[in-house]
């Protein structure tokens, strides 16, 4: 564009005549001014009230913590006394007065499992100090004997605690390891899901099962049973039995609740488009072994996504829609073109085994092809449909390709396709729409001028289709080699060149 023409255009743009605003427009606008514009004061007031709420909440938390700490200290002050009172002084109808810690629980019973379950359900309010002193009957077992029983029971309970600890450790282990553990524990599959061994927090049912089942097997294997319990405690254990059975029945409810059962790995398909990287490696292995992959094992979507890969620079925030058009990489006849869309989401470092958080929900892709400009089209891949995605995770890159046959005689600015990505952001809850328009002029530049990602994706698609039985592989291999030579650090281009050569050598 010459300077004169540009200046003329600028002049026309700048000097366009504009009518004066209609009379009364200013008054109309002023009439709309709301009465309360002081949003700042509102915000300050809200902030003050929130601060007050926080202070109240902090005071309550402090108060409750103080009470709990005091109770804990009182209990810790004389453990023998507490145990004695627990073992001997409680009436049969108040069996839950024992301390809550797992180690202490085992003291009061020769069958630790029963008592532990009973005590795990005991509310903290049932403190021994609540029992009136004059009503306490004399203990049938002297205190030194109780202490000795307690030592013996602790020694027996140690493997139980180890087993429970092992279960905690197994939360992140594989399913076989978990199963083996369950087998060792007498075949009852419990598990600690979000819970803490000893203090039952968020995992009471599982905890109950662990404690119930493991000692029973231990008792089977033990050479000598523990000493018989004191009478009141035996009654308490008998009372606890029906509740234990109920707990055991509920084991089937939590059987599937292991965190390790969740699929925390990367998604294999996004928008219904396969992004499974294993597909390429399987094909590559088959080719390296001198074989030929079966047509139904070649997933072109997956190959496209493998070669499109991750973006060189992932979006810093939110979601990005990348759209590009070019002539077809291997031109057969007519005005064949390729349209690529790629959705990249914000990168986030994820620790091993951790789940990837979503960045958007209710995402949908809408591809609108203009029939005035396009004679025919189809999506390259396994299906023409693009499925909606209920949740888009971080670190996602998904690419889709369309093959178009353009009509002749198109103007440069004629619309060929519009691609829209709609999603609701998880961070702000707002719905966003990203729209990209492809014009006929976008197909005029050569395929070699397209971005590297576009060329690799489209070449991967053509190669995939050739593996399925159509098209020749030699030209693809040559183009892939050119790409690999342009950037020797690009491992994907090298892989494609090698695989395309191998497939063409295999007679495809």
């Amino acid at each position: 564009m010459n300077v004169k023409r540009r200046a003329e255009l600028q002049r026309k743009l700048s000097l366009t005549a504009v009518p004066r605003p209609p009379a009364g427009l200013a008054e109309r606008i002023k009439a709309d001014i709301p009465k309360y514009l002081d949003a700042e004061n509102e915000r300050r007031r809200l902030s003050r009230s929130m601060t007050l709420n926080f202070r109240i909440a902090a005071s309550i938390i402090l108060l409750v913590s103080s009470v709990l700490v005091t109770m804990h200290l009182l209990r810790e002050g004389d453990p023998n006394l507490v145990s004695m009172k627990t073992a001997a002084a409680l009436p049969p109808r108040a069996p839950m007065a024992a301390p809550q810690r797992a180690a202490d629980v085992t003291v009061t019973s020769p069958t630790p499992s029963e008592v532990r379950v009973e005590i795990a359900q005991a509310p903290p309010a049932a403190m021994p100090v609540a029992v009136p002193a004059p009503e306490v009957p004399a203990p049938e077992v002297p205190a030194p004997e109780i202490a000795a029983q307690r030592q013996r029971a602790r020694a027996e309970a140690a493997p139980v605690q180890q087993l429970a600890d092992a279960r905690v450790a197994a939360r992140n282990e594989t399913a076989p390891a978990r199963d083996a553990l369950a087998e060792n524990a007498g075949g009852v599959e419990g598990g600690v899901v979000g819970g803490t061994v000893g203090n039952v927090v968020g995992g009471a049912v599982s905890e109950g099962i662990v404690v119930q089942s493991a000692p029973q097997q231990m008792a089977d294997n033990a050479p000598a049973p523990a000493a018989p319990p004191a009478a009141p405690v035996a009654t308490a254990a008998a009372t606890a039995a029906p509740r234990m059975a109920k707990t055991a029945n509920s084991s089937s409810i939590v059987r599937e609740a292991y965190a390790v059962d969740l699929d925390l790995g990367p998604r294999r398909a996004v928008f219904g488009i396969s992004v499974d990287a294993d597909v390429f490696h399987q094909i590559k292995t088959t080719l390296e072994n001198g074989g030929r992959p079966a047509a139904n094992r070649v997933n072109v979507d997956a190959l496209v996504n493998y070669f499109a890969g991750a973006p060189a620079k992932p979006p810093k925030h939110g979601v990005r829609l990348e759209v590009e058009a070019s002539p077809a990489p291997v031109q057969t006849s007519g005005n064949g073109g390729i349209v690529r869309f790629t959705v990249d989401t914000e990168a986030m470092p994820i620790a091993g085994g951790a789940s990837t958080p979503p960045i958007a929900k209710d995402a949908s892709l809408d591809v609108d092809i203009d029939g005035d400009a396009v004679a025919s089209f189809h999506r390259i891949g396994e299906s023409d449909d693009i499925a909606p995605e209920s949740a888009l995770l971080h670190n996602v890159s998904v690419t889709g390709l369309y093959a178009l046959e353009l009509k002749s005689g198109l103007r440069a600015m004629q619309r060929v396709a519009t691609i829209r990505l709609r999603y609701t952001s998880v961070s702000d809850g707002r719905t966003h729409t990203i729209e990209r328009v492809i014009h006929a002029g976008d197909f005029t530049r050569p395929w070699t001028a397209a971005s590297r990602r576009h060329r690799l994706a489209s070449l991967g698609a053509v190669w995939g289709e050739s593996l399925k039985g159509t098209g020749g592989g030699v030209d693809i291999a040559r183009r892939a080699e050119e790409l690999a030579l342009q950037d020797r650090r690009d491992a994907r281009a090298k892989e494609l060149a090698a695989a395309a050569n191998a497939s063409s050598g295999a007679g495809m």
Partner: protein
Amino acid sequence: MAEVASFPAREREQDASPPVRGEQKLLADIRAGDTAAAEELVERTYSAVFASIFRLCGDRDLAADLTQETYQKAWAALSGFDGRSQLFTWLYRIAYTTFLNHIRRPRRMTSLDEPDAIDVRDERPAADELLADAEEAERLREAVMKLSDDLRFTVTAHFWGGLPVKEIARIENITTVAIRKRLHRAFSLLETLLDEEVLS
């Protein structure tokens, strides 16, 4: 067109950029609930907002309605304005979005009047010349409307909204060099589009 206001972008740039201190004071007063300050903001900016929207849509009545809608949205969004850009830049962004929403929303009513009927019915002696200018302006407007979203916003914000390149770069969150590249690309495309119009 009875009265025509000249609207060079550079002049508007100065009009739309009052001293920073005054603008901040005005904003603070509005946020403090001062209705008079809000009216002053309207007085200062409404004609420029109207002109920007008129250049986008080419219809005087529609431009007036959309200007009113722009300010309604502005009052509602005032608490979210962080003050990083100038007030007029923020208003222009709202106006542009309001216009886009208008052209994208489904039409429930179709006007029987021509969009530029007022201009055509002007009976002043220079009506022919004005008509020719109006037609040329309309062609240019249509060509601008055919640009892609980013190019269209850059061109209209700079030439019709009077925003400096630096301000556009700030609200688009890109460099001024990128904005200038956009303008260059837009000019090339506009030239192509206008040539195609002439040939056809």
